């Protein structure tokens, strides 16, 4: 089964984005967002306090064994229990609690400042539908990738239409669940141009492990340009091969589940494919985005991402699969 291994996508160099090394691309410790920054500082401070407490307990523990009789008698008193077990925790924890609540309040204040959500992310089994609202109020549907303008607070509306998922991009912010019947709003602000990775954090059955996404932060102008491009209809097939690929797409019934704006394909069950070729990955950050991966995905997706809701298609005549894959790859 080794041929069917899920592979992480190569980050397309054409985007010209600095990734700053892969390690840490999904790490809460290499924060690039405001909230993640605040939380990391809280982590270091609270972690240091806890480490100091551990050292204190260990020192007392060692003294209880190896201390002189006088030290041991000093330890073996009710007063030690009261001061070490009651007074000390009350003092330390009061400080930590107040600090943590202030961080929480600061986050809430940022959210209030950010205003109405401009991006809706819908958790699906097992991918992400992402809907941007541009300045004119038009909705732009995309998938498995979140693009953000640099340095601006953006509110994300998080919902689901099946089971509970949780949206977690550790470099940006903490996670927030997507719960049926509820709408949650997460405010993020990315302060570094580049790519980071996120993943579903609430177990959602089946392919939960393979439900990831990329976050791409762009400078404001580049973001606006990208959004305008994303809002446009699909590029019409340019070459003869792409036309044939489009025909295969239509004949195979792909349009029942997928939309390619500007064509007759208007399905809404699966991800919108209008600009699928320009995304960083396929199948929710499971495969790199190239023609070969499209072909593998179409024929072998149940091995690559078991239980996903797309059936494998293997009925193609010679050459058809390649033209289809090339066509999809051309949808930049």
């Amino acid at each position, binding site marked *: 089964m080794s041929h069917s291994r899920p592979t992480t996508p190569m980050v397309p160099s054409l985007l010209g984005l600095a990734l700053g090394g892969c390690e840490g691309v999904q790490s809460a410790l290499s924060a690039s967002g405001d909230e993640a920054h605040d939380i990391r500082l809280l982590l270091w401070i609270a972690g240091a306090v806890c480490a100091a407490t551990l050292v204190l307990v260990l020192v007392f523990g060692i003294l209880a064994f190896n201390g002189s009789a006088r030290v041991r008698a000093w330890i073996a008193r009710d007063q030690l229990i009261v001061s070490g077990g009651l007074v000390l925790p009350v003092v330390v924890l*009061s400080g930590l609690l107040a600090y943590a*609540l202030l961080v929480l309040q600061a986050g809430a204040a940022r*959210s209030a400042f950010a205003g109405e959500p401009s991006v809706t992310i819908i958790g699906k089994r097992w991918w992400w539908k992402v809907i941007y609202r541009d300045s004119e109020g038009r909705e732009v549907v995309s998938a498995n990738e979140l693009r953000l303008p640099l340095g601006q607070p953006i509110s994300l509306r998080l919902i689901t239409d099946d089971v509970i998922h949780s949206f977690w991009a550790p470099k940006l912010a903490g996670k927030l669940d997507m719960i049926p019947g509820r709408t949650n709003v997460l405010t993020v602000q990315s302060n570094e141009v580049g790519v980071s990775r996120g993943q579903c954090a609430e177990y959602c059955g089946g392919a939960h492990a393979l439900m990831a996404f990329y976050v791409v932060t762009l400078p404001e102008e580049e973001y606006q340009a990208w959004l305008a491009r994303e809002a446009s209809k699909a590029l019409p097939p340019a070459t003869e091969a792409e036309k044939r690929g489009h025909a295969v797409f239509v004949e195979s019934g792909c349009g029942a589940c997928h939309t390619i704006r500007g064509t007759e394909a208007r399905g809404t069950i699966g991800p919108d494919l209008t600009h699928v070729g320009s995304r960083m990955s396929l199948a929710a950050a499971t495969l790199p985005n190239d023609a070969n991966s499209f072909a593998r995905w179409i024929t072998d997706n149940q091995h690559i991402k078991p239980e996903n809701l797309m059936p494998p298609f293997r009925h193609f005549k010679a050459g058809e699969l390649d033209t289809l894959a090339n066509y999809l790859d051309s949808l930049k």
Partner: protein
Amino acid sequence: MVHSGSPGQKQHVTSIVRLIAYLLAGPLIWAVQFSIVYAVHTLACAISPGETAIGGWLLLFMVGVTAASVAAALAILLCGRRIRRAVCGGSNAAGWTAYDIISGFLIILSVVAMSWSGVAIGLLETCDQTQM
């Protein structure tokens, strides 16, 4: 010789119930304060999200309940032994000293817990999400 609900027996039952009430006085007050504050807050924010008018009253109510609970717990702490003698009877024998200590420290811990929920009330926005 068969007992059936004789006064002596009932006394044994009530004596343990009273003792438990005395021991758990602090945590019981905490439980009441915690339940009221959490339930009323959830209810108020769910019914009228984002309304500042109710926010003020709600804040006042939560602070009031918390302060009253802390005061009640401290009152029991200060005159605990007298209350215990009235509620549970018992002497100053060794066992009762132990119960006094247990009850007293539990009140202290409960006061800490209630004060901390007061810290939360003081530091956080009263209602901030439309969802409960």
